[in-house]
C-alpha cells in the first residue's frame, strides 16, 4: 500500500439539463479500501464514478483525491485508472501494446515499459497472449487485458464500471474472486460500480447505496445487512430480499413498517405468530426458500427453511419472526432504533 487513494466527495451535484443525476453526494474512501457504488439503474452510480475519473464535471461540489482538490482536473491529469464496462480495448493494438499505452503516455522509455507490461500481464494471467489482438480473445481474456492496462501504471485508485456484467455467470464468479485477490495483493483503492448486491457484499470493504442520485447509506456489508437505515436499503441488500410488512401487523409493533429477513423467521407446521399457505417451495439443496401467502400482508413472505424442510404447495405453515432481528421503520421509511 502506498498510502494513496484517499477519495472524498463533498456535496457533489450533477445536472443533465434540468434532470439531476446526482443530488448532493457525500462519501469518503480510505486509502486501500475496496469501495462499492451500489444501486439500481439510474441511481447515479456510474455518474459518480465518471466524475471521480474526470470524464464528467460535477455541476456543484468538490472531489478531493489525496487531499488535493481535483474537481476541475481533466481525466488525463488524475492519477486513476479505469476498467470500462465494454473494456474499451484498442482493437488495432496487440495486448502488449494495449497494456503499454498508459506507460507510453507517461513518456516512459521502451526499456522501462517492457518488464512492467510483462509483470502486469503475469498478474492477470495473460502473459501468454501478449501478441494477440483483442479481437482474438474471449470475453474473460479481454476483461483481464482491461484490468492489466489499469494496474500497469500503479495509480492511486482503480475504477471499475460494472466490469463483470458482460461475462457469463460462471466466469463472473471466478473473476469476482480474482479481482478480490488482486485487491488483497495490490492493496490499492478500488472503486467498483455494480447493480448486483451480491457482488458488492462479497467484494467490498465499504458500500455506498445510491438511489435516484442520493446516498441512502454508507457502511460495511454487514452494517448494511444488520442495520439498514431505511426500507430501500433493507429491501436492496440481502438475497432473497427482506420481507417488509405494512398495515395492521406493523401497527401492532407501533410502527409503519416492519422488516424481517427470510433467515430470521422460525417455521413450524403446528404453531406460530402468523399463519400462511405455501405458494412455492424453492429447493436449493442447502436451503429451501418458501414463498408463503399470509393474511398479514398483501405480498407473499419469503422464509428460509432448512435444506430438507418437508412442505409442499398448499400446505399450511406457521411463521414466527425473531423479535431481536426485527427491523422497525417509520412513516418516511427510516429505521427506528
Amino acid at each position, binding site marked *: 500500500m502506498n498510502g494513496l487513494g484517499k477519495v472524498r466527495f463533498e456535496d457533489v451535484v450533477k445536472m443533465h439539463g434540468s434532470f439531476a443525476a446526482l443530488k448532493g453526494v457525500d462519501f469518503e474512501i480510505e486509502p486501500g479500501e475496496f469501495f462499492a457504488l451500489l444501486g439500481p439503474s439510474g441511481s447515479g452510480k456510474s455518474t459518480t464514478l465518471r466524475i471521480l475519473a*474526470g470524464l464528467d464535471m460535477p455541476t456543484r461540489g468538490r472531489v478531493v483525491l489525496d487531499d488535493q482538490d481535483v474537481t476541475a482536473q481533466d481525466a*488525463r491529469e488524475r492519477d486513476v485508472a*479505469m476498467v470500462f464496462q*465494454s473494456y*474499451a480495448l*484498442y482493437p488495432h493494438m496487440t495486448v502488449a501494446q494495449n497494456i503499454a*499505452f*498508459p506507460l507510453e503516455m507517461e513518456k516512459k522509455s521502451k526499456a522501462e515499459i517492457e518488464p512492467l507490461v510483462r509483470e502486469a500481464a503475469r498478474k492477470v494471467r495473460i502473459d501468454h497472449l501478449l501478441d494477440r489482438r483483442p479481437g482474438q480473445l474471449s470475453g474473460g481474456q479481454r476483461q483481464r487485458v482491461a484490468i492489466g492496462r489499469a494496474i500497469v501504471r500503479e495509480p492511486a485508485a482503480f*475504477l471499475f464500471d460494472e466490469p463483470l456484467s458482460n461475462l457469463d455467470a460462471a466466469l463472473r464468479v471466478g473473476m469476482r474472486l480474482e479481482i478480490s485477490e488482486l485487491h488483497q495483493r495490490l492493496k490499492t483503492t478500488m472503486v467498483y460500480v455494480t447493480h448486483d448486491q451480491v457482488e458488492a457484499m462479497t467484494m467490498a470493504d465499504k458500500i455506498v447505496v445510491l438511489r435516484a442520485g442520493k446516498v441512502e447509506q454508507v457502511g460495511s456489508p454487514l452494517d448494511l445487512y444488520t442495520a439498514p437505515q431505511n426500507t430501500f436499503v433493507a429491501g436492496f441488500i440481502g438475497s432473497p430480499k427482506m420481507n417488509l410488512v405494512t398495515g395492521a401487523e406493523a401497527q401492532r409493533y407501533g410502527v409503519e413498517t416492519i422488516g424481517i429477513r427470510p433467515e430470521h423467521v422460525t417455521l413450524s407446521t403446528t404453531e406460530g405468530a402468523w399463519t400462511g399457505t405455501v405458494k412455492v417451495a424453492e429447493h436449493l439443496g442447502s436451503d429451501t426458500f418458501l414463498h408463503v401467502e399470509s393474511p398479514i400482508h398483501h405480498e407473499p413472505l419469503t422464509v428460509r427453511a432448512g435444506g430438507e424442510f418437508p412442505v409442499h404447495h398448499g400446505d399450511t405453515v406457521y411463521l414466527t419472526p425473531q423479535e431481536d432481528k426485527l427491523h422497525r421503520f417509520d412513516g418516511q421509511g427510516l429505521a427506528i432504533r
Partner: protein
Amino acid sequence: MKTKHLRAIGLLIVTGIFILAWVFPIFWSVLNSLKNEQDVLAYPPKLFFEPTLAAYRSVLFGPQSILPNLWSSFVISAGTTVLTMAIAIPAAYALARLRVPGSRWAGFYVLATQMLPPVGIIIPYFLILRNIGWMDTYQGIILIYLSFSLPFAIWLMVSYFEDIPFEMEEAAAVDGASRLTTLRRIILPQVQGGIAVTIVFVFLNAWNEFLFAVVLSGNTVRPVTIAMFNFVSVEQTLWTQLAAVSVIAMLPVVILGILAQKHIVKGLTVGAVKGGGRR
C-alpha cells in the same frame, strides 16, 4: 436443392450480363488502342488483327503527347485529395464527436451540395474565378473541386468516426492521452479503411471530372479528360489514339481501385447498412 441450383445459375447469368455491359467499353477501348487506323474503321469490326503499339507511342511521345496533361490531372487530383483529407478528417471528427451548433444540419447541407446540378453553378464559379484571377490555374480548379469533394468527404468520414465507441476515447483520456494523441494513436488507425475509401473517391472524382475543367481551364491547365479531345476534330477522329489515351487515363483509376479494393468493398457495405450515418 434443385431450386437452389437454379437460383444460383440465374444469379450468375444476371451478374454476367451486368459485368459484360460494364466491361465491354473498356474491352473495346483496349482492342481499338491496339489496332492500326485501317483496322479500326473496318466493317464488320475485326476481333482478330495484328496488334500494334503505334497509337501508344504516338500519344505518349508524339508531337501531341499527353504526358503533360497526365501530369496536370495528377497535380489537380492529388492536390484536391490532400487538401480535402487535411480538412475533412478533423472536420468529420469534430462533427462526429463534439457538440457543434448546427451539426444536425451539416448532413443535409452536404447532401444538398451533391444534388445541385453542376450546370447551375458553373457560371457563378466562372465569374468568381475570373474576378479573383484564378481562371485556368491549378489553384482555381482545385478550389472548385474542393467545394464538391470536401462536403462529400466529411460526410463519408463522419460515419466512420461515429462507428468508434466513445468509451475508446474516454479510456485513452484516463490512460493520459491528449485529445490529439488520442486522434492520432487510437482513432485514426481505426478509420484507416474509411480514409482509404474517401481518398479513392475524392481522387477519382477529380481525375474523372470534365465539365468544370473544360469551362474553367483548358489552356495552361489542361487535364487529360480535356486533352483527349485533341484527337477529335472536325475533319477526323483519331480513334486508335483516342482509345490509347482512354486506356492510359484509366490506369491510375484501376490501380487505385485494386490497391484499395478490400477497403472499398467494406466501405460500400458500411454505407449500405448505415444509410449515411448522421445522427
